[in-house]
């Protein structure tokens, strides 16, 4: 099952750092989210797109996670040559992870 079937997400940028918040629709899936969406799994999914670290903040009140990815945007909105400078699309790559 893909994460997209049980969760939703939004990605944003500050400088060269991307954050992606992810929430499960059904609170019963929160443990699965905690178990499967680890920093290492996220780092593997992004591969060479992210040169820095992945930090994971848990948000139990909302059955969610906030994932913070450094050196993630090819230098940041104003410097990157990527087609999606803000990493707006990153939310969809997270949701494609198998859970």
């Amino acid at each position, binding site marked *: 099952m893909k994460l*997209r*079937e049980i969760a*939703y*997400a*939004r990605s*944003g*940028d*500050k*400088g*060269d*750092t991307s*954050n992606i*918040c992810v*929430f499960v*629709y059904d609170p019963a899936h929160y443990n699965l989210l905690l178990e499967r969406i680890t920093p290492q799994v996220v780092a593997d999914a992004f591969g060479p797109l992210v040169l820095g670290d992945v*930090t994971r*903040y848990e*948000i139990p*009140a*909302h059955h*969610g996670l*906030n994932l*913070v990815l450094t050196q993630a945007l*090819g*230098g*940041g*909105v*104003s*410097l990157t*040559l*990527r*087609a999606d400078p803000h990493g*707006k699309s990153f939310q*969809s790559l997270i*949701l494609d992870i198998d859970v």
Partner: protein
Amino acid sequence: MGNPSVLIGCGSAYANDRLGPAFDLARSARVRYLGFDCLAERTLALAQLRKLQNPQAGQDERIDDLVPLVAEFTAAGGRIVGNFGAANPRAAVDQFAAGLRAVGRTGVRIAMIEGDDVLNQVRQEDLELPELQTTVGSLGDRLVSAHAYIGAEPIVEALEADADLVVGGRLADPSLFVGPICHELGWALDDWELLGQATLVGHLLECGVHSTGGNFEDPPYRTVPDPHNLAFPFAAVDATGATVTKLPGTGGAVNLATTRTQLYYEIHDPRRYLTPDVTADFLNVRIEETGPDMVHVSGAQGSRRPDTLKVLVGVDMGWKGVGEASFAGPGCLDRARRADEIIRRRLESWSEEFDDLRIDLQGWNSLFGDQYRPADEPAEVRLRLAVRSRNLAAVRAAVYEAEYLYFGPAGGGGVVTSVTPMIAVTPAYLPRERVSTNVEVTVS
């Protein structure tokens, strides 16, 4: 509601935001205050470039279009706070004043907030630029701009001076809302818990349609009604929290999911969201759906504001070039990959000049329409070359290679190229006491 409350809405979330939802909210009689965020990270550096070419330029480019809104809304007792000034708050104030007089609306009190331009301080302190791993001093004449994020303090000062319209430069996004909330409800600017709550409201309003169904749909899992007609959000705020909603008859949605995604948008540690006003803690914010397209939010916390102010430093990085060309039909991917190899080979002699170069392959149905849909390869591929360098000739040489794909592998076409100045913005941190603001009131 027993507690004193204030009604405040969003008028803009960035420099090119649509104006219709702002006019709708201004004319709705549902809000007393409107906050306009007009700046994204790069907007100010680009505005500085416009100002360098013309001392009367560098402010928000929508001011003439906003004059009717300001005229009507302030006549009805409404008050507006915005970072319309961008690189040139004085020019913004002059333009608003002249525009208002031209439509017969005299007597509008316009406050200008200056002090966010910290180019001199940044030079003197030789600030570190962590993302570039260097210091300001090393930039020499490539240093274009430096703007500190300014908090609610001078906004409150301006509102206390009876301003109808408050115009600043790099006023921080949430502070555009924190200022009016604190002014109206009498909240002290060192009551960190209340500032945490006000900042929560500011954060939910400052991104406009991000709270009402924008950047949200993912069919079939998530859709909203009438996504062509999204509204800007507004809120009723009191000491217990805030009710966030949108105008009836508009599209989109305000619910638990839309509010959550905005609550943690562009935030790192949820317990430490740093603004000029406060260190806000959003970890345990409560969101309750209290009606159709209506949520009540509460439970934000706050602690002491940071001792430094974030500064965005604009740096001239030379030029950015982009060139694109398409291939379609059988073997299109192979031909595009061949083109990639040819371009890289031809640009070898320039490689020392490029600070960055990449070639990517895009595409869906732009050449043959939906009728052509092969099963085992893409219908089309669009090669996109992007390059940056401080050497304009090198950038042009690279971009021309996209054009020469008319004569590369068979069937290359649809070339589009561009070369634009590349201004990077990078963060730095300046001790708060090195930044002083000034409020000056003009009457239209």
